[in-house]
C-alpha cells in the first residue's frame, strides 16, 4: 500500500548532503527511500533507523566508509593510514583528474578506500573500508597501494586485517597499472597469511571484477551482508553471452554461500559482534579471557 501511495517519489542520489555527524548514518534529504532491489518505498527515517536495511527484502544498502566505520569500529579508536594519497593520470585519460577532484570535493575522500588501525569490540586490528561513492570503488593505484600497505603494516605489527570490500572492478582510466594492483595486493595478502595472521573479508554490495578476483576472495574467513551482489563478471555481460535472462538471486551473497565461496552471511546489526568474536577466537589471550 505504502509503495502505491509513494510510487512517484524518486530517490535522487545526488541529493545526499555532505556528511552530517547526526547519529551514525548520513540522512538523505528525501522523505522516502525506494529500495533498488524490491522497489518498495519506505519512510527515510525508518530506513535510516534500520541501518539502511530494507525491511521488506533485507537488501543491505550501500554505506559510506564513514558510516561503516561508525557501525563497527570502537569509538575514537581509528588511526587512519595514508590519508593524502592521490592518483596520477598514467594514460592521460581526458577528464580523469577533474573527476577525482570533483569526487574529493563531494565525498571528502581522496580515493575509494579508507585504511587504518583500530579496535573492534576491544580487539586491535588493521581495517580497510571501501566506498562506492568514489568511482564505484574501482581499484586503481591508490586502492592497490593502500591495501598493500595495510597488509604490510599488519604483518609488521602482527595484527589481523578486517577488510570491507565493495567495488565495480579495476579502474580502467589507469590502464594496465590498475590491473597490476590485483597481483600486488594478492602478494601482500600472501605474506600476511604466511606470517600466520588472520584476514577477515566482509563482502558488501557490490563486490565484483578485479577486487573479487584478488584480495576480496583471499580471506581466511569470508563474511557477506545479506543480498550483496558478489561476482566476477557483470550480469549483463553474462546475459549477453548466454542470450538469456539470469535468475534474480544469481551472484547474490546467498548464491555465493550455496556454492561454497562465503563462510557466513551476517546481517548488518550483528556484524560488529561477529567480527569481534572471530578476532577474539584468534587472539592469543582468548583462552585466558574465557577462563576468567
Amino acid at each position: 500500500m505504502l509503495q502505491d501511495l509513494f510510487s512517484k517519489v524518486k530517490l535522487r542520489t545526488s541529493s545526499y548532503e555532505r556528511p552530517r555527524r547526526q547519529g551514525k548514518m548520513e540522512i538523505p534529504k528525501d522523505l522516502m527511500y525506494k529500495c533498488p532491489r524490491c522497489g518498495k518505498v519506505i519512510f527515510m527515517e525508518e530506513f535510516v533507523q534500520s541501518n539502511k536495511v530494507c525491511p521488506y527484502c533485507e537488501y543491505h544498502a550501500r554505506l559510506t566508509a564513514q558510516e561503516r566505520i561508525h557501525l563497527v569500529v570502537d569509538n575514537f579508536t581509528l588511526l587512519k593510514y595514508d590519508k593524502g594519497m592521490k592518483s596520477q593520470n598514467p594514460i592521460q585519460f581526458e577528464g580523469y583528474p577533474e573527476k577525482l577532484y570533483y569526487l574529493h570535493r563531494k565525498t571528502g575522500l581522496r580515493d575509494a578506500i579508507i585504511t587504518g588501525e583500530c579496535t573492534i569490540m576491544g580487539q586491535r586490528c588493521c581495517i580497510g573500508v571501501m566506498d562506492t561513492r568514489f568511482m564505484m570503488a574501482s581499484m586503481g593505484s591508490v586502492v592497490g597501494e593502500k591495501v598493500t600497505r595495510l597488509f604490510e603494516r599488519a604483518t609488521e605489527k602482527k595484527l589481523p586485517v578486517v577488510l570491507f570490500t565493495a567495488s565495480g572492478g579495476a579502474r580502467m582510466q589507469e590502464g594496465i597499472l590498475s590491473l597490476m594492483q590485483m597481483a600486488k595486493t594478492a602478494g601482500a595478502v600472501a605474506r600476511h597469511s604466511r606470517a600466520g595472521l588472520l584476514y577477515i573479508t566482509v563482502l558488501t554490495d557490490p563486490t565484483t571484477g578485479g577486487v573479487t578476483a584478488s584480495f576480496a576472495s583471499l580471506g581466511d574467513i569470508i563474511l557477506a551482508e545479506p543480498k550483496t551482489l558478489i561476482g566476477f563478471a557483470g550480469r549483463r555481460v553474462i546475459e549477453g553471452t548466454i542470450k538469456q535472462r539470469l535468475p534474480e538471486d544469481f551472484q547474490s551473497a546467498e548464491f555465493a554461500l550455496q556454492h561454497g565461496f562465503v563462510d557466513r552471511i551476517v546481517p548488518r546489526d550483528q556484524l560488529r559482534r561477529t567480527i569481534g568474536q572471530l578476532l577474539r577466537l584468534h587472539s592469543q589471550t582468548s583462552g585466558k579471557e574465557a577462563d576468567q
Partner: protein
Amino acid sequence: MTAWEHLQIVREKNRPTIRDYLPLLFEEFVELHGDRLYGDDGAILGGIGRVGGQPVTVIAQVKGRDLKENQQSNFAMPHPEGYRKAQRLARQAEKFHRPVLCFIDTPGAYCGVGAEERGQGEAIARSMMEFMELKTPVLSIVLGEGGSGGALALGVCDQLAMMEHALYSVISPRGFASILWKDASKEQEAANLMRITAEDLVRFGVAETIIPEPAGGAHMDPEKAAGNIRAYILETLPKYMQIPIAKLLENRYDKFRKVGAFTE
C-alpha cells in the same frame, strides 16, 4: 607502429598458437590434464616439456585457429577449473624443482554461469597468490592477447616477456570504448589511447623484455618466431635458476610492489 596496427597482426587468422609452438620450442612434451577437483579445461594446456635439456612445466592458454579448435578451447577463455589446473601443475613444478613457463594468449577469463558458480574470482585470486609464493622460477610470455585478470592469473612471474606485436590490457579496447565512452565503435581510438603495446608495458615496468617477431608478424614465419622465443628461454631461464629461492621471491614481490602512479 600504433597499438591498432599491432592489434591487426595479433588478430591475423594464421597467427601461431601454443599448439604450433610446442614442437618448435621443446625437445619433448607430455600433456597433463585436469584440476583434480572438477574437470579439465581446454582453454588451459598444461604439461612437462624439455627445453635445452632442462625439464620445465608448461602452462598455456590455447587459441584455436578454426571453429572446432576454438570450441575445444573455448576461444582461450578459461573457466575456474583452468586456473585450478594451472595451480596444481605449478605446485607440482615446485615439488620437483622445475621452472614454470606460462604462455598468455586470452581475451579474458570466461564470463558465464558455470564460471560464476565455480568461483571465477576466487580461482584467479588464488592463482596470483600461489604464483607469488611459488618456490621455483616462473617466466611468462604474452604470445598475442593478454586480456585482463584472466591473463594476469598466469602473469605473476619473475620476468614478463611480450612478443613484439602482443598486447596486454585491463580490458579490451572495445570494452574500454563501450564502458567509458558508451560507444564500442571507438575501438581504434581506445586501442591507441590505452597504452597496451609491448613498448608501453616495458616503459611502465610491467614487462621486462620484447621478443622480436619476423617482419610482418609471427604468422609470416612461425619457425623463426619460435626460434626467437626459444632463444629467449634458453638465455633467460638459467639466470633465474641460479638465484636463491628467498631472493627470487623477494624480487618477484618487488616487481609487482613497485607498480602504481600516485602522489602523497
